[in-house]
């Protein structure tokens, strides 16, 4: 991880928080500092969101700062774009990333292109939060990881934290950013780190240093990766839940892998990737999303373009299978530590 000292003292006391609490704290801090920040989405108001991220915000800031919306994702994004054009900083929630498709046109044709098509006359300083990823027996419509689609759309920033400290700092950065940000929250990490061993007891965030989150305002910069686990033998490029799975695979195989947590998927921290791969000469890319045209493809392409002469083995991709996310066979689908470990071994042996 980055030096924890990177977070300034003004950020306040660090207290134990789950990722849900850290995200809520980011919203709370942002709403308190800037009355232009408004928060809305399905079940987000009175109830506080199906994952309770927005709990208490309506009571604290009133229903015109935090409110429920009709079930219409295009409308959620569409009003956010209009509000952004007015001068607010909307933070919209899509209840599950699997449900962003009805809002795809407003995200892709509008939010992402507003600044460009109006030569900066209008902008969309909006954040669109969505829980993503599997691991909760959600079946094919509560488990998807559609990040690759967003990264193909120029004008969007795509961000995915892997822990509470980053989650809060990145969400504040996203809210303060004048570009539209897709903020993906790996829901399997909401309550604790998860290394893919679904059959072991859940570890709570309170047991982990990254679950100690400053109470006040701080940011974690966009476009900067973190070295989650330093290593010399092989570079693992990953993000979200897979950061933990990859680190676990490194421990279990005993392979001295450097695990890079991208945090910002796009625009990304190319330097960090290139420096590491040039050092290790080997690279494994890990994500939960389906493989074909997944974000791992772009990462593979970037690595081979920038590190071709340094590579000693083919770049490996470990990903979800190219099927919808099945309900019962969840753990056969999920790219757990065994599959990542096998890829690490292949990368080392080649």
């Amino acid at each position, binding site marked *: 991880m980055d030096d924890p000292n990177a977070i300034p003292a003004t950020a306040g006391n660090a207290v134990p928080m789950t990722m849900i609490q850290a995200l809520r704290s980011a919203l709370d801090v942002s709403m308190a500092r800037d009355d232009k920040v408004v928060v809305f989405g399905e*079940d987000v108001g009175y*109830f506080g969101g199906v994952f309770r991220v927005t709990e208490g915000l309506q009571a604290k800031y009133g229903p015109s700062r935090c409110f*429920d919306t009709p079930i*219409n994702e295009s409308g959620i994004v569409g009003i956010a774009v209009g509000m952004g054009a007015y001068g607010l900083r909307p933070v919209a929630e899509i209840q599950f990333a699997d449900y962003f*498709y*009805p809002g795809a046109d407003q995200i892709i044709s509008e939010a992402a292109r507003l600044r460009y098509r109006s030569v900066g006359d209008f902008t969309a300083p909006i954040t669109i939060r969505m829980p993503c990823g599997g691991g909760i*027996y959600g079946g094919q419509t509560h488990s998807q990881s559609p990040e690759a689609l967003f990264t193909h759309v120029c004008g969007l920033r795509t961000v995915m934290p892997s822990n509470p400290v980053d989650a809060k700092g990145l969400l504040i950065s996203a809210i303060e950013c004048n570009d539209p940000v897709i903020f993906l929250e790996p829901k399997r990490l909401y309550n604790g780190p998860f290394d893919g061993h679904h059959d072991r007891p859940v570890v709570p965030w309170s047991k982990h240093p990254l679950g100690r989150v400053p109470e006040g305002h701080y940011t974690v910069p966009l476009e900067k990766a973190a070295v989650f686990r330093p290593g010399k033998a092989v570079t693992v490029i990953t993000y979200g839940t897979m950061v933990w799975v990859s680190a676990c695979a490194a421990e279990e195989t005993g392979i001295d892998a450097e695990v890079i947590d991208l945090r910002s998927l796009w625009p990304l921290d190319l330097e960090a990737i290139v420096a590491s791969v040039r050092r290790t000469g080997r690279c494994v890319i890990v994500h939960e999303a389906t493989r074909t045209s997944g974000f791992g493809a772009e990462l593979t392409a970037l690595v081979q373009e920038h590190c071709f002469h340094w590579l000693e083995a083919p770049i490996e991709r470990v990903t979800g*299978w190219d099927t*919808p996310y099945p309900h*019962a066979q969840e753990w056969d689908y999920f790219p757990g530590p065994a599959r990542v470990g096998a890829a690490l071994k292949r990368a080392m042996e080649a």
Partner: protein
Amino acid sequence: MSRTSNALDLHVPAPHARPGDKPDFSGWSFPEPGETPKPELDASAAELRDFAYGLIRVLDFDGNAIGPWAPSIAPEALRRGLKYMLLTRAFDDRMYRAQRQGKTSFYMQSFGEEAISVAQALALNSDDMCFPSYRQQGVLIARDYPIFDMMCQIYSNARDPMRGRQLPVMYSSKKDGFFTVSGNLATQVPQAVGWAMASAIAGDTKIASGWIGDGSTAESDFHTALTFAHVYRAPVILNVVNNQWAISSFQAIAGGESTTFAARGVGCGIASLRVDGNDFLAVYAASRWAAERARGNLGPTLIEWVSYRAGAHSTSDDPSKYRPADDWQRFPLGDPIVRLKAHLIGLGEWSEAQHEQARQELEAEVAAAQKEAESHGTLLDGHIPSPATMFDDVFERMPWHLRLQRQQLGV
């Protein structure tokens, strides 16, 4: 942001009662049973506008069937309807508890809304195609789909017809005219219209029936369905089940404040009715009327069924967090099972004793089916369909990349 005297203000609708408050249905008023006339089948949508703002009712609370909408329906058929409702409720109850016991990941009851799907299923032909949301298990049950198969689906076990791929309650049965349930809201409604258009293109006689919840009417695809249904006069019934709640948000958040969901149809030039959804006879009669209209090339009908979600949205939420716990008990339209029972008893075609006996028999039937289903496994015990099958049916024939991935999984 400082406010001036003529400042604008955001209106955010709020329900009459929240947890801790007394349930409050005082603003609700309805026409009396029998009060609403029954229009000709070929009445134009324009002539029917007022029906979208009223409420068609047949049964009073003493069990009498009153007025022009009272259907002529044999007692035997009514008893079947009652039993299907009882079976649906017993089934829901068991499966809800099975989820609580960890035997599966998820469940959704239709508690309180049983009349709508059961009576409409009986009013349709068995080969008319239903495009349900996730709360029309009553249709499957009324079409005699085996509850054993439903349970195996819920358990994702070895006999699950959906092979463990789908979240519980996401059934599919083409032969029973039950379209595969989607997790994405509202998508099924334009599909229902397309199916109905196809039937018309083919010169067939079958019609379609699409289902959507009050909350989901806010989704774009509802508008899409209305628009296409109107333009091509598709032979389709569009059912809005207004059970007053989405998940935690009440119907005004979906746009129901000082208007109705049936009015959405009016706006699109579609014949639209608003009906007491807890009145089995009204549901049957209105469904028949709409079905005959569709079959007579007279176009689509939108029906808003006014009901109340008696239970939780799903096993993933706790309604006492956002509404008074005893809300349903105060709901002015009552319990559909109680009301049909009273009617049948009033007709002299049923008795409390028979009712109690039927209830027990149906519960035993459910218990037996559950036992058998569990003998094939549950999600809890891991007797799930082979992961190898996970790669089937992505395409008609498996391409190289999926064969390779199946190999990589080593199954």
